């Protein structure tokens, strides 16, 4: 088991944001968390990456408990988060953003190899290498954020709303690249409001509602589920 989350309870002050959720990600999978705004999807990712601390419950990454490890150390274990809203470093160049993605790595040759690899997925970033991150378009920023997340060479990539604010064509492209990344061996935990797209590429999915998992199963089964259809797919 790559990632195993058990009975996770997370509070924002008095708000009980995650109410005992459990799920897992196997090696090589794309797992999707879908649900409405405020269901707790981003909270889940932020807790896994260490930015938030759970009150109860455990998160095991390759059988190692990571809820006690600070966020900056979790990256070097092999978990990388592409945060919601991209959060690229606007005053830094594209190159510097990518370098920051590889912050935990030492070997310049390996870093260069990772950079070449992300350029094959995102050729546009190579053209914009010395441009400031803040001057990129929304789609390019999402590409940069994803590429930056890959620079630490993670075994698990946490993607938070990669389709947000993008045109349908760009959404298609981003999801194609996500599948490509997965095919190269990176497991993916994908959080999406765009349930249709998420279910179309995920192997398995969990449906989150106000801090609880209400449904789970194979993505293909969930997309046929009448409840999911009416609530999230708009069919």
């Amino acid at each position, binding site marked *: 088991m790559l990632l195993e989350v058990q009975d996770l309870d997370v509070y924002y002050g008095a708000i009980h944001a995650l109410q005992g959720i459990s799920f897992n990600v196997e090696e090589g999978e794309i797992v999707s968390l879908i649900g409405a705004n405020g269901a707790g999807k981003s909270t889940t990712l932020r807790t896994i*990456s*260490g*930015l938030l601390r759970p009150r109860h419950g455990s998160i095991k990454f390759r059988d190692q408990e990571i809820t006690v490890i*600070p*966020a*900056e*150390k979790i*990256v*070097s274990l092999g978990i*990388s*988060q592409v*945060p919601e809203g991209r*959060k*690229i*470093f*606007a*005053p*830094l160049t594209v190159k*510097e953003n990518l*370098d*920051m*993605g590889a*912050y*935990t790595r030492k070997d310049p040759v390996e870093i260069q190899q990772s950079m070449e690899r992300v350029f094959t997925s995102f050729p546009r970033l190579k053209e914009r290498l010395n441009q400031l991150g803040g001057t990129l378009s929304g789609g390019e920023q999402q590409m940069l954020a994803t590429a*930056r997340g890959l620079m*630490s060479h993670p075994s698990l990539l946490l993607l938070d709303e990669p389709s947000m604010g993008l045109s349908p064509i760009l959404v298609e492209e981003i999801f194609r690249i996500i599948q490509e990344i997965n095919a190269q061996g990176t497991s993916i935990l994908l959080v999406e409001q765009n349930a249709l797209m998420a279910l179309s590429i995920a192997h398995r999915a969990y449906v989150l509602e106000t801090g609880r998992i209400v449904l789970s199963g194979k993505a293909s089964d969930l997309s046929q589920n009448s409840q999911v259809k009416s609530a999230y797919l708009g069919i």
Partner: protein
Amino acid sequence: MQKASVSTTAPTLAHGPKTRLAWVGQGFLLILAVLALYIVVRNLIQDPVQFGQIIIGGLQLGFVYALIALGYTMVYGIVKLINFAHGDVFMVGAFVSFFSVTKFNLESWPAVVFPGLPAAVVVVIGTLTVILLSMIVCTVLAITIERVAYKPLRDAPRIAALITAIGVSFFLEYFGALKFVFTPEFIPYPSPFTVVTFYINNGIQMMVPGKPLPGHVVTFTSIFVIFIVATLLVQFLLQYLVHRTKIGIAMRATSFDKPAARLMGINVDQVISFTFAVGAAFAGLGGVLYAIAYSSIWTQLGILPGLKAFVAAVVGGIGSIPGAFVGALIMGLAENLTMGYISTPMRDAVAFTILILVLLIRPTGLFGEPEKEKA
């Protein structure tokens, strides 16, 4: 129709008196600027030598402010804190060098360890050691201050950390004033080397002690030269650090977005400590040079230079490194011109008038970008 009436009548009502006020303000500023220019130009024509002398003094003061202002601006850039204790770190730098010279004769260690060395080499290495020791002590002090006083307040409202900074500042001043720590009095500062004076008369000549100057000439000291070299070196090093090194880029990333920086694996606490350390090292360097140049020290010597360096950082645009440098030179020149042509007590008034004017006209400073509130 309705739209048109809104856009024609409402703005005139709202802008009418406002525009007139702005016009009065701008006119006032214009008169002030013309007056200042008149004083400067008239004196330049009347006595160019005196003018040159005042500019040199102003630049020297500006370099002092620049070395302090860098620390203000870097720390503000990364934790959004105006570190009022920074001027006192500068003071500690001066005192550490005082004790290392008077108590331990640190400046002459190369002569003791290697007796055969030429005197010039001894002076250079000895002085550099004195400066380096002060820089190290200041660095350790600043990291300690940050860990003890500021880090626990990182998530508290900004005003809490600001008040704490003022507290730390007073603590350093009055703890230092205790008899058994530094001293409450002004003390003469023994320079680790003999300061040489040069004058400009058919090229640059060295002044021979005991021999009078050949008439009315512009003079400057070796300290002035050291200030230029040191400040430019620091500026260059800092640009290199911030743009070319991993830790420097991490500093900029951290200052822009701390949670995102943590997601990259950047240890934000370490980066913040490092920023304080770099700023303090430059303040320590400035402290030693200041003490050598102005040859008397006491525990409150950091207050005014600290405040003016802060003003310099604001004038340049707080958070901007080149801005701090340019702002510092402006402050130093403005102050020395005031001293030379208006009156000495006016210097502080002019310094803080500049602060008020900048805050009124361009609050982001010369090089600053408007700060956007991040959620």
